[in-house]
């Protein structure tokens, strides 16, 4: 039987087991939308902006572990999708984005709504295709899913001209994976290297396991747990790794990096052997490599992407492979040869670490009626038993969420760690709730970030997506203001909002429940009420009026070593420590900004 290109696309998606497609129609994809209507094979979620469609598909992927799918039209639809695509690319999220394109005869003529989608997205996709032959359509979609999900995952764009969606061809969807000779990701680690790694780790006096988002993408948190238990070593994770290891576990030192804990940052700096798994020594983690390497240390690095290894720091034992496989193999060797770090050394190391930990770097004063943003997150964690799905935007609230919500399982924490995209929070919450309807989903955001995709409140109303938006409203683009305070002598250039909407009315206008909370004593009851509304099917928009000038600490300033943190007030002992504003002349590196 002959099918149209549009029908082929829809049938292919069905064959891939796609449950949701997030998208927005337009001229170039009318045919596909007609096929969706007629065939009715999966649910289509109409967002209010293409960026949100891609973010929601991305969140669906992060939550479910499956490939997310988005569909947008040519030209402006495709350009609106780019931020979403780049966000997914930065965090290695498996996703297929189908973009409409003008008809093949018009390509290259600057036709109405024509843009070179393949060209524009090339630097921010794992791969992309322009399909000009209908016979290539089904195999291309197959390849797109294959590439998106394997090796180091990532977004794949399939650009389909309108006439290809109209042409007719015989449809058969490839059953087996298609052999792509130029794409053969290595998943099995090199055994010799793995043995070497185990021995090196066992020889450590001050070992540390440092894990990132790769643990979550690679479904390797069980293996990570087993390895950490077996060796008795401390571990620390990146922002993207949160939930990869239970945050309430004694062997976990908390997140490390720019806003990492005191104990995690010092342990990473002082370690003599670092085992990095599915983490890439990002600048937000080790700041400057030279400072990180000042303390002599050996580095073992496991990553499925060879180009992530030795990109920022030199590595002594590189292991290319799937983190799950490699960790499992390492555990095998450890067991057989009893090759784990020496007990006495470890005891001493832990003593030092516990000493750091006892400084309680995340302590804050919650005694006043002005709401501390940290307090909201802490209370939220309490009433949800640390088990809700939390999405966040980008800013101080994001860091407070990361620091104060103890994530206990993978895929519980969704945020834009790589690109740092404001505006992901609400669409992420939508995608997460659709992927895991039985979970409570909270979006922790700022009054700046939420306004970047607030129109999605409308989508949530249409599809009855009951989530809770927790806005930590400080009236500022807080994270930027924090930098202005520390590095630009308090010059608050364009970070203050003097006309915020009435979020309660706004929520109500969209058909939801709105709440404004202004006192510490009201926080808990309000959160409980929101959870109740949620479970009754209502979206709740909570506007928490918080302390305007709360900053995120500890903080590793740009150009600083992990052991040169600006500490929270209660930990400051010396004059130098407390002279926060003095950081201005401490060699500020302007190349990296929030």
């Amino acid at each position, binding site marked *: 039987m002959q099918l149209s290109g549009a029908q082929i696309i829809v049938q292919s998606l069905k064959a891939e087991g796609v449950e949701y497609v997030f998208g927005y129609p337009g001229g170039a994809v009318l045919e596909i939308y007609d096929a969706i209507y007629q065939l009715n094979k999966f649910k289509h979620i109409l967002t209010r902006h293409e960026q949100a469609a891609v973010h929601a598909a991305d969140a669906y992927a992060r939550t479910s572990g499956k490939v997310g799918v988005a569909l947008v039209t040519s030209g402006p639809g495709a350009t609106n999708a780019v931020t979403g695509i780049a966000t997914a690319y930065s965090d290695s999220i498996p996703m297929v984005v189908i973009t409409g394109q003008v008809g093949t005869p018009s390509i290259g003529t600057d036709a109405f709504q024509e843009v070179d989608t*393949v*060209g524009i997205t*090339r*630097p921010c996709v*794992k*791969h992309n295709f*322009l399909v000009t032959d209908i016979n290539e359509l089904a195999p291309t979609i197959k390849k797109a899913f294959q*590439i998106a999900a394997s090796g180091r995952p990532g977004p794949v764009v399939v650009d389909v001209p309108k006439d290809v969606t109209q042409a007719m061809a015989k449809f058969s969807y490839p059953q087996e994976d298609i052999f*792509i*000779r*130029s*794409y053969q990701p290595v998943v099995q680690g090199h055994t010799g290297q793995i043995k070497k790694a185990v021995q090196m780790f066992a020889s450590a006096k001050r070992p540390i396991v440092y894990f990132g988002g790769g643990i979550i993408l690679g479904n390797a948190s069980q293996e990570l747990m087993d390895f950490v238990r077996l060796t008795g070593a401390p571990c620390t994770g990146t922002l993207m790794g949160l939930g990869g290891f239970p945050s309430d576990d004694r062997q976990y030192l908390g997140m490390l990096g720019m806003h990492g804990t005191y104990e995690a940052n010092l342990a990473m700096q002082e370690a003599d052997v670092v085992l990095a798994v599915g983490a890439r020594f990002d600048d937000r983690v080790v700041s400057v490599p030279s400072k990180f390497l000042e303390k002599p240390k050996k580095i073992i690095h496991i990553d499925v*992407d*060879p*180009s992530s290894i*030795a*990109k920022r720091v030199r590595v002594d034992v590189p292991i290319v492979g799937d983190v799950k496989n490699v960790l499992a193999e390492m555990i095998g060797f450890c067991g057989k040869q009893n090759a784990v770090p020496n007990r006495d050394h470890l005891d001493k190391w832990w003593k030092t670490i516990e000493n750091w930990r006892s400084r309680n770097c995340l302590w804050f004063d919650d005694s006043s009626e002005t709401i501390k943003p940290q307090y909201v997150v802490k209370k939220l964690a309490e009433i949800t038993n640390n088990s809700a799905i939390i999405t966040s935007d980008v800013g101080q609230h994001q860091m407070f969420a990361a620091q104060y919500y103890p994530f206990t399982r993978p895929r519980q924490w969704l945020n834009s760690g790589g690109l740092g995209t404001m505006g992901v929070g609400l669409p992420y919450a939508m995608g997460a709730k659709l992927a895991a309807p039985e979970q409570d989903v909270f979006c922790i955001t700022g009054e700046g970030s939420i306004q970047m995709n607030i129109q999605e409140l409308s989508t949530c109303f249409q599809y009855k997506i009951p989530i809770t938006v927790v806005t930590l409203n400080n009236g500022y683009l807080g994270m930027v203001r924090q930098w202005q305070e520390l590095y630009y002598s308090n010059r608050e250039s364009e970070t203050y909002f003097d006309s915020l909407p009435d979020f309660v009315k706004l929520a109500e206008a969209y058909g939801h429940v709105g709440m404004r909370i202004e006192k510490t004593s009201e926080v808990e009851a309000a959160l409980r009420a929101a959870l109740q509304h949620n479970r009754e099917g209502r979206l709740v928009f909570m506007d928490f009026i918080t302390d305007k000038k709360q900053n995120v600490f500890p903080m590793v300033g740009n150009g600083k070593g992990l052991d040169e943190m600006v500490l929270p007030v209660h930990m400051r002992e010396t004059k130098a420590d407390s002279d926060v504003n003095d950081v201005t002349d401490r060699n500020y590196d302007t190349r990296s900004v929030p």
Partner: protein
Amino acid sequence: MRRILSVLIENKSGAMSRVVGLFSARDYNIDSLSVAVTEDKTLSRMTIVTHGDETVIEQITKQLNKLIEVIKVVDLNESRFVERELMLVKLRAAGKDRDEFLRLAEIYRGRVVDVTDRTYTIEITGATDKLDSFLETVGQAQILETVRTGAAGIGRGERILKI
């Protein structure tokens, strides 16, 4: 340090722009690039001349390998190789320069491929530095135009780059 990379890549539209885009996106420089289809029509082979220290070259190689359409990348400098570039150079040639240029062309094993009563166009092949040295010898004043292909490189002896 100057490096020559040899890349086997799918002969598909857009594949080459991915390679070039990779260099510009990561702020690496391409000193020269030559590319053509191979004996296998589905494959193209590129020779990329670039420069950088060990870590830069390692990153370039890894990033190239990461491109879906790239099949193989070899750093020719890792062992012995032959390198050739073709240059056409048009010289202002009048009076006694004419004889001089003919002699020079002979020394460099060049050939005169076009002549007018005031110009010579000479074809020379060889390693890039040999062509540079020819131009230097001739002197800027006499050079009207040059066009060069960029280096093409191949491993010596039994060593081959194939899938």
